[in-house]
């Protein structure tokens, strides 16, 4: 499976990414960058979704893609369980009840299956959206700020869950949290000044333990890099 996108991304007359040449390999690729830099746009281009920007170049991606948008895209008229099963239903595949229940439990929503999404807190909604993309079992998975509404301990737990569930897949994740990027990323990319900059990843297995002293150090360095362009 090849996942690649190359060329230039234009928004009106302004280049969002001036020189793009991205090949993804199995493992996590984390994408950082200022708000409005074009991270979501890039992710949508990769996933083959319509964008306001224009890609002048080529794209190669598998047919089956997992996708967690920046907005949670929960359907208000479907139950929590119905939302979890939505992608499977759209694909015409079954999502066995035990698997669904297990996923709900894993994201801390055990017993909430019959509720409407509006009865969930902000973080609970995000976890449901995460469970949905984990259920989807795609070889290429795109995650747009998947943990942004979670407190730190829950966030770490969800990162571990995602890392476990998506082991071996090609994952690309947008995040604003340098620690998160370094903890999960086999590759870390910074979108800055319309260019993708490669940030050296940490050594060792993923996810990097939170207690790893190198993590905090690398995060501070990355942060400094983000501050002065």
């Amino acid at each position, binding site marked *: 499976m090849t996942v690649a996108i190359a060329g230039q991304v234009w928004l009106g007359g302004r280049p969002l990414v001036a020189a793009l040449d991205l090949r993804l390999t199995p493992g996590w690729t984390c994408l950082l960058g200022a708000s409005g830099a074009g991270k979501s746009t890039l992710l949508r281009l990769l996933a*083959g*979704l*319509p964008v306001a920007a224009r890609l002048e170049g080529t794209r190669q991606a598998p047919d089956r893609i997992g996708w967690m948008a920046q907005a949670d*895209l929960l*359907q208000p008229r479907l139950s929590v369980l119905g939302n979890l099963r939505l*992608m499977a239903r*759209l*694909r015409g595949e079954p999502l066995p009840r035990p698997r669904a229940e297990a996923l709900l439990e894993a994201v801390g929503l055990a017993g909430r299956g019959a509720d409407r999404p509006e009865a969930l807190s902000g973080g609970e909604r995000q976890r449901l959206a995460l469970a949905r993309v984990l259920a989807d079992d795609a070889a290429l998975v795109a995650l747009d700020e998947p943990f942004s509404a979670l407190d730190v301990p829950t966030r770490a737990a969800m990162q571990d869950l995602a890392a476990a569930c998506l082991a071996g897949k090609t994952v690309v994740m947008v995040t604003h949290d340098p620690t998160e990027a370094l903890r999960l990323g086999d590759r870390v990319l910074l979108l800055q000044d319309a260019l993708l900059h490669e940030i050296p990843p940490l050594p060792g297995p993923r996810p990097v333990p939170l207690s790893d002293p190198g993590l905090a150090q690398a995060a501070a360095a990355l942060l400094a890099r983000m501050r002065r362009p």
Partner: protein
Amino acid sequence: MSARIWPVLAIFALWQAVCAAALVPAFVLPPPLRVFETLWHERGLIGQHALTTLAETGAGLALGIGLGVTLALAMALAPWLQRLIGPVLAGAQALPVFVLAPVLVLWLGYGLGPKVAMVALLVVFPVASGLHDGLCATPAAVLDLARIARASRLRTLLWLRLPHALPQGAAGLRIAVTYAPTGAVIGEWVGASQGLGYLMLMANARMRIDLMFAALLVILALTLLLNRLTDRALARAGL
């Protein structure tokens, strides 16, 4: 309940006042008390005709709603169908009853057929139009999910577009239900020997204006009852 009754009383009071002030002669608009008297005296006659109209309305509603939903879904699935059916549906609303009457009678005879067809014709358009409008207004972000899943049109319709279209479908249904008894009355103009529409026409021709209004009251009550039942059912469905 008591809050509901006030508007009704207000309307009857206004009506009685209009008649008492002789703003309208009794042979154009008889006073409500006289209409109620007639309603009571002729309850047997009116009740029997009302049953016919009720049956026509019910059958036509079922047919019209079923057809309307089917057409809306079909048009949403196949845009070329929309281009074909859309204008036909809209155009059919502009067919006057005296054009339809001979055709309907030729094909359906003088029984329940033409009345049910008339009700269905009036019901199908608001239902189909409302639901189809809703189906075409799915937020783009929601359709991203379908794109990602490479979902077939049918699955996209069923799982994403339809749930989002329900409120607009409900709005269309509310409008449609109001027209259903009217459809039965119009259907009875096509040719009938029973039903409240027939009774009203006959009463009008025989100068029995109070009987005509008594029958009209029953139709109004039927319309409002249907309205309320629909509201209840939709509210229960969260719409």
